[in-house]
């Protein structure tokens, strides 16, 4: 794996509030993700985890009627000053359900971001596709079938394909929104291994409702409850010695 | 670029809106001479005299309404019957295939219905159906007179065939969307299968059926070729359904290209305007009923 990414950047949220229509779902959250760290966000359903990471690459505003306030700093720069499209090229995202583009081959899926951003096909593109598939631990399984439709893969493979697709545009930060929730345990284990490997070169924010997953893959963990950040700290500390009663209740399974 | 593409699609969407307005505006603007000359009485006078340029549209309005009403009378029970059969009795694959075939009936161009009308239905009407009606029901003014073959009843029959698909397609869909609990509640009362249809399904589906009937009516009112070819083109109102008549669409088809004076043309366009208004109202009612139910009509 030689997909070293020297440019991995930190991302910082300052007093982020978000609304769907008139309903406020995030009530002023601040947290900082350091470069090449993995931050896990945990919390019960509806606590605003997904909304929060969708604020980080401004996908939140794609939803009709949704808006946000506060500042997101990517490497110290306010992202609201950026074009959202350019921002999303630097902050990649992997969704809950694998979403390979239905009309494209495996190769084209991985290359889609590059192609549509103007890179010509050629040896350079082949190389990036191969590297990305290697990095997503999928290369050995698909190297002989790159021309097949992306939708022909199994669910776990599709999700790794989507990770490769996100890696191909060389993002500075990768957001993962419950990437394993639609997968079986074996496929989940593979993705977890992959995240572990990726953190050498990438900054990753992962939303999960699976606390073991959070404990296994992350450096820091944030616990959200009803749109508030209850606690944020080193993963080892959160899971062994939480500072808040609510955090302790949640990780010991007392509610949700 | 993003804004450009959005603006482009917006302009084309706007064009659709503009087109609808344009249709209404053009019909109004190009019939003002007739509106001035005859006023509202245009709609209630029977005279149609291109030589003296004295016009009234009552014959056509009457013909349009009576043929459409008769067509509904024939098509509604059959259309609903087919829908019940397909929704309840036919096995699913067969139901799908039949529904497709019945939609094909709506895809056949109307001029081909006209052709079948002239060469198949008219002879049958003249030789068998109309003599039979005259013999047995001739005491009614509705069934008096010689058997021409062509006429209001024949036009209504052709129309009925053409609108059955509109009723069947939507009715079948709403019948199939009746919740299982509704049906099971009726079955639990010991209802036979037919009683389930009558008690639980038809009442549940009634607004969908009503919507489909209005949609079919909208089609029937505006149908041109098939009617023009079999209705007989007579500019007088006669009581008998066997007599030749005329509809608004048919008079446009026959006379528009030949209208030689400006007033004559404006008069015909006013007939078009009236037809436009009537169909908008009827279709509007249909959409109002169906819009609430999210059933896609055939187009």
């Amino acid at each position, binding site marked *: 794996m030689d997909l070293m990414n020297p440019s991995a950047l930190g991302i910082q949220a300052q007093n982020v509030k978000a609304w769907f229509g008139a309903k406020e779902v995030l009530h002023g959250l601040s947290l900082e993700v350091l470069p090449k760290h993995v931050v896990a966000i945990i919390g019960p359903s509806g606590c605003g985890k997904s909304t929060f990471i969708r604020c980080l690459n401004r996908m939140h505003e794609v939803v009709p009627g949704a808006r946000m306030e506060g500042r997101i700093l990517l490497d110290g720069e306010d992202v609201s000053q950026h074009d959202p499209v350019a921002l999303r090229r630097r902050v990649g995202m992997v969704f809950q359900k694998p979403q390979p583009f239905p*009309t494209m081959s495996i190769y084209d899926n991985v290359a889609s971001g590059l192609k549509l951003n103007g890179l010509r096909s050629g040896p350079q593109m082949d190389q990036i596709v191969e590297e990305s598939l290697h990095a997503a631990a999928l290369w050995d399984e698909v190297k002989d079938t790159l021309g097949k439709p992306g939708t022909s893969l199994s669910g776990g493979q599709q999700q790794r394909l989507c990770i490769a697709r996100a890696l191909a545009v060389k993002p500075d930060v990768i957001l993962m929104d419950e990437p394993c929730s639609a997968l079986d345990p074996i496929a989940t284990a593979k993705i977890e291994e992959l995240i572990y490997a990726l953190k050498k070169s990438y900054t990753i924010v992962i939303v999960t409702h699976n606390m073991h997953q959070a404990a296994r893959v992350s450096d820091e963990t944030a616990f959200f409850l009803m749109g508030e950040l209850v606690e944020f700290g080193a993963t080892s500390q959160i899971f062994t010695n939480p500072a808040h009663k609510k955090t302790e209740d949640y990780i010991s399974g007392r509610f949700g | 670029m993003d804004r450009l*593409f959005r603006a482009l699609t917006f302009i084309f969407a706007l064009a*659709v809106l503009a087109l609808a307005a344009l249709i209404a505006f053009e019909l109004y603007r190009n019939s003002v001479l007739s509106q001035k000359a005859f006023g509202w009485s245009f709609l209630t006078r029977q005279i149609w005299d291109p030589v003296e340029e004295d016009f009234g549209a009552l014959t056509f309005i009457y013909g349009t309404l009576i043929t459409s009403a008769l067509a509904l009378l024939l098509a509604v029970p059959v259309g609903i019957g*087919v829908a019940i059969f397909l929704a309840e*009795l036919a096995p699913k694959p067969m139901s799908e295939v*039949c529904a497709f075939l019945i939609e094909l009936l709506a895809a056949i161009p109307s001029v081909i219905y006209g052709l079948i009308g002239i*060469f198949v239905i008219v002879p049958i009407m003249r030789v068998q159906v109309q003599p039979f009606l005259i013999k047995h029901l001739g005491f009614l003014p509705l069934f008096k007179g010689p058997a021409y073959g062509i006429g209001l009843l024949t036009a209504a029959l052709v129309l009925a065939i053409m609108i059955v698909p509109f009723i069947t397609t939507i009715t079948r869909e709403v019948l199939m969307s009746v919740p299982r609990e509704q049906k099971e509640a009726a079955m639990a009362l010991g209802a036979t299968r037919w009683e389930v249809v009558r008690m639980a399904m038809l009442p549940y589906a009634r607004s969908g059926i009503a919507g489909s009937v209005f949609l079919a009516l909208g089609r029937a009112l505006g149908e041109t070729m098939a009617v023009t070819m079999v209705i007989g083109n007579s500019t007088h109102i006669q009581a008998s359904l066997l007599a030749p008549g005329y509809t608004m669409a048919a008079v446009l088809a026959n006379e528009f290209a030949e209208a030689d004076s400006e007033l004559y043309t404006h008069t015909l366009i006013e007939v078009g305007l009236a037809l436009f208004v009537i169909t908008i109202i009827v279709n509007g009612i249909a959409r109002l009923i169906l819009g609430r139910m999210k059933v896609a009509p055939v187009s």
Partner: protein
Amino acid sequence: MNTNASTRDVVNVAAFGVTALCAALTLGILFFILGYVLIHGIGALNWDFFTKLPKPVGENGGGMANAIVGTAKLVGLAGVFGLPIGILGGTYLAEYGRGRFSFFVRYAADVINGVPSIVVGIVAYTLVVMPVRHFSALAGSIALAMILIPISLRSTEEFLRLVPNAIRESALALGLPQWKVILFVVYPSALSGISTGALLSLSRVSGETAPLLFTAFGNRFWSSGLLNPIASLPVMIFTYSIAPYDDWHRQAWAAALVLLMLVLLANVGARLMLRRRTYT
């Protein structure tokens, strides 16, 4: 009690029997029409029909080559005028349209769709024929385009809506601008649906007669350019069938068969195209 139950069973069987009869009747009519047109049309079809011009009135023989080409030209032009409006307008409704404006556009499309085709013909007449004072292929194709627009608009919107939103989001998350997402990810996903809708709308207008009567009018010879009257199969069927000559009736059936085959092929083809692709 027992008799009651048995009367109810009789009613049950009888009622469903009647519905089955209705279905048999309706399908019977369909097959009768198809069969009748096939039998009468096949006997009348020959090579001349496709290659020759109509003979002068009173002479037997000749064909409808000009009307076949005319229909192709009218429908093709209608597609050129109408499909961009339908498809791009439909794109607006599906991808950007949520507010009042879209509601009115949809409503307008429904209104146009419900307007009798002969009334659409009048509007094409007042817009195109009246200013230049003669009938033309252009006027005919504009009339057909007006009929085609609402059909392709609504089908485009429908098929675009079938593309899961998650696909749009994952493309946006790759840092693609929305227009590229629509053009290169959403359109390809909906391609079979959109093209089927386009095909159906073309097949629908290819059978339209009424709006052509006083726009394209008709022509017993070849028509050149856009500004001359032009023959079409549906109008030929109409004029030939109401004329008193047997040879014309024969040719009307031949034309009906050709037209019917076109329409049926398009419909069955569309059906098969749609069945092939479904979303997971």
